[in-house]
């Protein structure tokens, strides 16, 4: 139970993922390449980042640690932190270490809101702890330095130049318990954010350089494949198949050429079948015709009439077989037809020969079909009802988007489990619907083949109170 539930969840997840995955060849290749590029760039980025970390430790953190430690040791030794000296201009100067100074102030001099360099803070804290030097908070702050920064004027030319080159200044404040805050500042290389942007831009350029040719080649492959798929889908054995243009890479061309060859073979095979059926039809009709002529010499009228009927029935069967076999290549073109008039005409033909067939009045219904074939399908259904039930009621209804022709009777019906089977060619039912002549049931097979060819469906159902409803549903 639990396992099954799990499996279902997993398949659900797979489905969700699949929905967002591109299904086309080009899309999948592009996604794969994009992912691969991304992973490569991410590794690249990681390496660069680590290198920068190491570089920064050497350039910034290590000197800062040295200076802080030195300053603390000075404080502890009771020496003054600031050595009063006079520079060349005669101004008092502070002691210099590594090109900058360390001051002792009473409060944290770093304004809140600046970006902090946590790695530097951590580095200093670790070093001080290792050395056993007492310290409180450690705060850092990064200040951007632009070319015209007014503070630059307060620095020496050499320092100002360095700051400008680095593009930033890192201020470090270390709280010494009982003494105050040691502050120092050091040039700070342009932020990591810059690196990220540079990498992003680089990745984007990669993507463009790789993906554009990829999409181009993908299109070159998929466009001929798409037209091949369209041709295969639209392939109607009855119609003259136009060969698909051979283009794209060699592999694709080979597939298209193979498809064209196959289409030509299918068409040739169907032509052969048609010729064969034509010959069979002719060869079977000729002896039938000879027989039909000869029975005129039979003197007994009843006998002769019965013989003529049998020959007529054989001929109809032959017609049905040939029609069914030829249905894949209908010779009749589809046209706009008034379906109500079509059904009415079929019903009228039955009434003309004295059959009890009724039709409910219906307004004009326009639909596209092959009229002679559809007439035949409707005729076969009505014929079936007339044969087994003695009468038929025909009705046209228009469910949304379609039109339905219903042929109802009050005959013996068909067992529920045989309702589908009667559409199969040459199906015989053991029950009451068996044909009294012991013949074959091709009428329904032919009707179904015609309706399917027209894009519709055909169904049989037993009727409440006995009898059968045959329904042809056609799209509008």
């Amino acid at each position, binding site marked *: 139970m639990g396992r099954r539930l799990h499996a279902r969840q997993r398949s659900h997840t797979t489905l969700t993922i699949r929905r967002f995955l591109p299904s086309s060849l080009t899309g999948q290749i592009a996604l794969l390449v994009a992912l691969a590029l991304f992973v490569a760039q991410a590794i690249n980025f990681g390496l660069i980042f680590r290198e920068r970390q190491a570089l920064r430790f050497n350039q910034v953190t290590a000197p800062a640690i040295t200076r802080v430690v030195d300053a603390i040791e000075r404080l502890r030794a009771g020496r003054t932190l600031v050595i009063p000296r006079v520079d060349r201009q005669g101004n008092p100067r502070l002691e210099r270490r590594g090109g900058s100074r360390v001051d002792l102030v009473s409060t944290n001099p770093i304004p809140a809101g600046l970006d902090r360099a946590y790695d530097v803070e951590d580095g200093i804290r670790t070093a001080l702890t290792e050395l056993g030097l007492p310290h409180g908070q450690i705060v850092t702050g990064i200040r951007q330095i632009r070319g015209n920064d007014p503070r630059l004027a307060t620095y020496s030319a050499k320092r100002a130049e360095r700051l400008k080159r680095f593009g930033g200044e890192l201020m470090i404040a270390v709280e010494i318990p009982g003494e105050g805050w040691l502050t120092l500042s050091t040039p700070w290389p342009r932020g990591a954010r810059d690196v990220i942007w540079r990498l992003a831009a680089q990745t984007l350029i990669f993507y463009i350089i790789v993906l554009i040719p990829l999409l181009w080649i993908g299109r070159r492959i998929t466009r001929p494949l798409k037209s091949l798929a369209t041709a295969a889908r639209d392939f109607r054995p009855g119609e003259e198949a136009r060969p698909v243009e051979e283009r794209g890479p060699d592999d694709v061309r080979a597939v298209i050429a193979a498809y064209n060859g196959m289409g030509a073979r299918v068409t040739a095979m169907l032509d052969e079948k048609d010729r064969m059926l*034509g010959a069979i*039809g*002719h060869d079977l*009709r*000729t*002896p*039938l*015709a*000879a*027989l*039909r*002529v*000869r029975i*005129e*010499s039979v003197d007994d009228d009843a006998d002769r009439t019965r013989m*003529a009927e049998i*020959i*007529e029935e054989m*001929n109809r069967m032959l*017609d049905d077989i040939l029609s069914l076999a030829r249905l894949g290549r209908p*010779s009749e073109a589809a*046209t*706009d*037809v*008034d379906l109500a*008039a*079509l059904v*009415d*005409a*079929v019903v*009228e*033909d039955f*009434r*003309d*020969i004295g059959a009890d067939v009724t039709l409910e009045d219906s307004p004009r219904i*326009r639909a596209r079909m092959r*009229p*002679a074939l559809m*007439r035949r399908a409707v005729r076969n259904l009505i014929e079936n009802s007339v044969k087994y039930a003695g009468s038929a009621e025909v009705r046209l209804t228009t469910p949304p988007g379609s039109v339905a022709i219903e042929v109802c009777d009050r005959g013996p019906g068909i067992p529920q489990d045989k309702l589908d089977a009667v559409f199969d060619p040459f199906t015989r039912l053991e029950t009451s619907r068996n044909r009294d002549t012991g013949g074959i049931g091709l009428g329904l097979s032919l009707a179904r083949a015609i309706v399917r060819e027209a894009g519709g469906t055909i169904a049989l159902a037993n009727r409440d109170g006995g009898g059968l409803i045959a329904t042809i549903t056609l799209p509008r």
Partner: protein
Amino acid sequence: MDMSDTPHLLLVDDERSIREPLAQYLTKQGFRVTQVGDAEAARTRLQAYAIDLVILDIMMPGEDGLSLCRHIRATSETPVILLTAKSEETDRIVGLEMGADDYVVKPFSPRELAARIRVVLRRMAAGGARQHAPEAGSYAFSGWVLKTGERSLVDREGVSVPLSTGEYNLLLALVTRPRQVLTRDQLLDLTQGREAAAFDRAIDNQVSRLRKKIEVDAKSPELIKTVWGGGYTLASEVTRL
């Protein structure tokens, strides 16, 4: 000559099993029958005898029936009835366009063939001039087109309005005789030719059904008008297409 009253038929069919009993039957029916098995023999017989009517099988090895039919039509007024193995529309249309006067589809009833032969011969005797088979071609009248090959009626918008056999025969009789008054008896006679069994209900019934399909208002018909004293007429110009 003792044969002068007996119509002389030329039966052309390569199938001996059909040709021989058919010739026998037609002879019994009072025709003089000459039978041949191919088109070449038929040509020589046509020159040698005064043939009144040719019965011609379409499907023959060598020169086929259609080609022979074209030859007969080009050189004489001798009427032709085609025997066709296929009931397919194209064969029928082609045959009638080749100038055949009528056709029967195999397997046909010899009685029906004999009846057709008599109708064609009577027509020849009465009119003298051969009448073009009405079934070849299309007729346009007041926005409608009756296509005889496909047996369909097409409206202004190109929508096909299927007709029952009875309706079709009645409409064909009317459009081939526009503005003529046709009595019920005449119409019955004209429409029974093709499928005799399919037409024994009253003409009036067929007319009213046809009106429902083609008239703007079936209650006050403008196309198929009732003529006082019995009969109907098609009150429209008809153009043969």
